[in-house]
């Protein structure tokens, strides 16, 4: 299993470093590729223009069969689907995960989610959620009800 894990993450890292999509930069890929930090830059003409955020990816040995654990660290963007503890409500990170998705495509999905925001605000249940949430967003049972992003 771990050989697939290493091969695939090595390929993804190489590709991301050679052809980084706009606004996406890999900062670090440490701990035998198990923990990545990727900088994403808010797109021009959106509410997040000029802002940069750091996404932390944590992979377990079952990647790519299991989704990575993706959270915002340090500076968490204010967005209706992002909780103040950095957890992101995005279906492809949880039950809609597919091994065909890559770190690059996940970053692009999150950027697109940021770009489609019309108002900078926290989710309505933020206060409640951060009190009860576990450390990993994958322990949360997510209900996805906004298909517009």
């Amino acid at each position, binding site marked *: *299993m771990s050989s*697939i894990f290493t*091969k*695939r993450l090595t*390929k*993804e890292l190489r*590709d991301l470093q050679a*052809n*980084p*999509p*706009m*606004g996406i*930069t890999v900062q670090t890929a440490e701990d035998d590729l198990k923990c990545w930090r990727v900088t994403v*830059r808010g*797109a*021009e*003409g*959106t509410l997040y223009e000029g802002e940069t955020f750091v996404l932390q990816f944590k992979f377990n040995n*079952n990647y*790519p*069969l*299991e989704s990575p654990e993706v959270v915002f660290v340090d500076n968490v963007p204010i967005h209706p689907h992002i909780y103040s503890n950095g957890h992101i409500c995005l279906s*492809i990170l949880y039950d*809609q*995960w*597919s*091994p*065909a*998705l*890559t770190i*690059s*495509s996940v970053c*692009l*999905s999150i*950027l*697109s989610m940021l*770009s*489609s925001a019309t108002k900078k605000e926290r989710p309505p249940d933020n206060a409640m959620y951060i009190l009860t949430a576990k450390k990993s967003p994958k322990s949360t049972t997510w209900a996805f009800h906004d298909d517009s992003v």
Partner: protein
Amino acid sequence: MSSNPALLPLPPSPSPPLSVVASTLQAHMSSVHTIPPATQNQNEHRNLEISVAWEDSTGDEKRCWICFVEEREEDVSKKVRWVRPCKCKNSLKFAHEDCLLRWISEKQGPITTDVKCPACGHVYAIEESTDVVLAILTFVDKSIQSVVPYVTLAGVSMAFYVVSTTFGAYAVMTMCGPDEGERILSEANWGWRTWIGLPLIPIGLVCSRLTAADAALPLLPFLVLGNDQIRLSLPPSPALTVCLLPWARLLYNGVWATIWPWIERIGRHTPARNGAVRSGGAVGQAAVAGQQEDEEDVQEFSIGRRDGQRLVLGSLLLPAVSSLMGTLLGSIPWVRNKVPDPFHRNILGGCLFVVCKDVASAVYRAHRKRQRRTRRVREYRGD
């Protein structure tokens, strides 16, 4: 967005490249196998290639969409089986059979056996050896699996029911005394009203300590006991007493609610020691502080009262305590003459206990408040 101008030769046109990325992405997310129309301009195409970096450029080269290993990278000595399991094209067309089987086991739940391609939705057709024994055992296993939660729920409910009924019978025996209790619980009188009424006794007792069931409690005994049990008589029969008790409770609570503010006022008029020693200018502050203390006090007590364990235990012990009080009352000859029936003595004993308990708790509270008001921090006498 133009962080890498060398790699992304985007024109400085006002049209935001973001929409392109978003739409590309959407195409990628929903149906990666679809090739977007080639009619788009050069820049868009460039974008597309980047965002869907794994899209195969050659088309014929086999690449596993799970582990991303290409056929030409593979060790020729290893015999790996490639499959094309669904209608997806390009980068999602081929997979290693091993990789795909792992993905299928990952997605397969205990009940759902069908696994769909995440991109095109095609249900993977799986071949596996099967035989009659396995089929039967699988059926049995699944049946048991689906029945388990219901059986558990039924068992827990049954246990709760049996415990409640037993407690109800115990309460009847305790309150009515052995002779009358035996008569009520004798098999001849054991009808559906008993089966419903007895388990309701502990529930009713707990509810009597809450306000949530205030509307239901006064009516419940009438419904459960039925008309033929309730006869107007003096002294009231056990059935009539049980029907009247919830009303007496409401009345009693109402009396407390009326006199409580009055008791509170008495407490407030007690001169507070630290208030008296303060200079005139600080009196206003002292009054404010006193009020705050009161509020804190109220909070502290209301939490104490809602303590679940004390509430349940206290209400369930009420029959035993009532019986004890009734026995004590019975030892007084005058009471024994006036109230010959042990049931009535027990009820009286219970009521007496409740009144004593509430008075004691009010006194306790008042004293605690007074103590709080005298509280001061001692000056440090050292260096």
